[in-house]
């Protein structure tokens, strides 16, 4: 029998090793797998390369992972949202590396990594500092830059419902990067609000088919990052 369900967040993140590349779902707090991130902080892996659109808020979740000095490098599009305190501070001190990628190029690089496309051309960033050092190619009269697919050792994502095959559906704009990260990671670890029997999810509406998922942990009542930030909480 196939059963991707596991019993604790500790077990879920147990294999994440020092130096691993970890894609973390979420756009701001929407879709941020905060319990998995906190378990990763507890687990202790360091020198991580983290891929996320942002760098977290306040002193919880992704920001706490960074604040606890587990992240050597961030690959993201927008590292300084409102309430982003930790990353800007470390970056200014030169204590964390940043690879800044336009948001659509980031999404497409992750999707390419998952789809077995090693590289593609895009018009995004042509003529800007972010295209510096990149190969430029003229195709049908327009310039495009070459961008490479992005893969990861692990993905940590959050969804609304999952079954034991690892089929997933999401909630509203919390979907964001999760489906492509699930494709691009060697091991995809999911926290779900609800765990449902196989057959409950309509095959027409599954967003992430189980083939892209390795481990599912149920977190029925997930923390809300904005609530924690507003309360001034920090982790651990």
């Amino acid at each position: 029998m196939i059963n991707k369900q596991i019993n604790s967040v500790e077990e879920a993140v147990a294999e994440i090793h020092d130096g691993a590349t970890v894609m973390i779902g979420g756009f701001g707090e929407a879709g941020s797998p905060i319990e998995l991130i906190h378990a990763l902080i507890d687990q202790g892996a360091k020198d991580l390369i983290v891929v996320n659109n942002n760098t977290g808020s306040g002193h919880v979740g992704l920001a706490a992972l960074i604040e606890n000095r587990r992240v050597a490098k961030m690959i993201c599009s927008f590292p300084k949202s409102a309430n982003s305190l930790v990353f800007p501070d470390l970056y200014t001190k030169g204590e964390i590396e940043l690879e800044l990628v336009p948001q659509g190029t980031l999404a497409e690089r992750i999707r390419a990594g998952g789809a077995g496309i090693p590289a593609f051309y895009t018009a995004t960033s042509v003529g800007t500092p972010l295209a510096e050092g990149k190969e430029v190619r003229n195709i049908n009269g327009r310039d495009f830059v070459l961008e490479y697919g992005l893969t990861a050792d692990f993905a940590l994502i959050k969804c609304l419902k999952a079954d034991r095959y690892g089929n997933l559906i999401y909630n509203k704009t919390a979907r964001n990067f999760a489906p492509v990260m699930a494709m691009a990671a060697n091991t995809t670890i999911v926290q779900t609000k609800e765990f449902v029997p196989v057959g409950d999810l309509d095959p027409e509406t599954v967003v992430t088919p189980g083939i892209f998922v390795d481990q599912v942990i149920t977190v029925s009542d997930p923390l809300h990052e904005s609530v924690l930030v507003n309360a001034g909480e920090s982790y651990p």
Partner: protein
Amino acid sequence: MSEQIIGWDREQMAQRAAQDIPNGAYVNLGIGIPEKVVRYVLEGREVIYHTENGLLGMGDAPAPGEEDPELINAGKKLVTAIPGAAYFHHADSFSMIRGSHIDICVLGAMQVAKNGDLANWSTGNPDAIPAVGGAMDLVAGVKTINVITQHVTKKGYPKLVEKCTFPLTGQAVVSRIYTDLAVIDVTAEGFKIVELAPGVDFDYVQERTGCTLVAA
């Protein structure tokens, strides 16, 4: 020079930009004043708003009690979804942008050059944290890029300039600019005044612009 006290306020700038959005358009709104455009769809028109974090059919802010922290816009503010909306993932969302399926994008700006070059992501200050978000994707992919911006910076420097001094977001991408003082088109002859805000005259705008304007 202090903040403008004549001309359009932020809501009026958004409202003026909304007037130029035709029925049936697919529109992406940048962070800041552009977000307000969603409120001002003209009577008799339907406009579908796209937010790059995975929603087509974005509505305005939710009523109290209706908030869902997982239903937000690109500025991470709480929004709603209209009937007929659709959710999708980030790669699909940027396929809509990169693939030129979005008709109009309304963005903020730090500088716009008279050839349509846009700078809106970085001052180039080596101490600043660079953050680009989806701006470069939007200007590279959306058919028409309009800008809403104060005509000058808080310190009074022109934002409409001969040539951008800040790092570019995209080259020759801006079509029209809505400032607190005027509506201005980017044309082959340079910035051309389309409309002046009430109580504002050409010279007043020219004084606050970094290159020669063309009259309407």
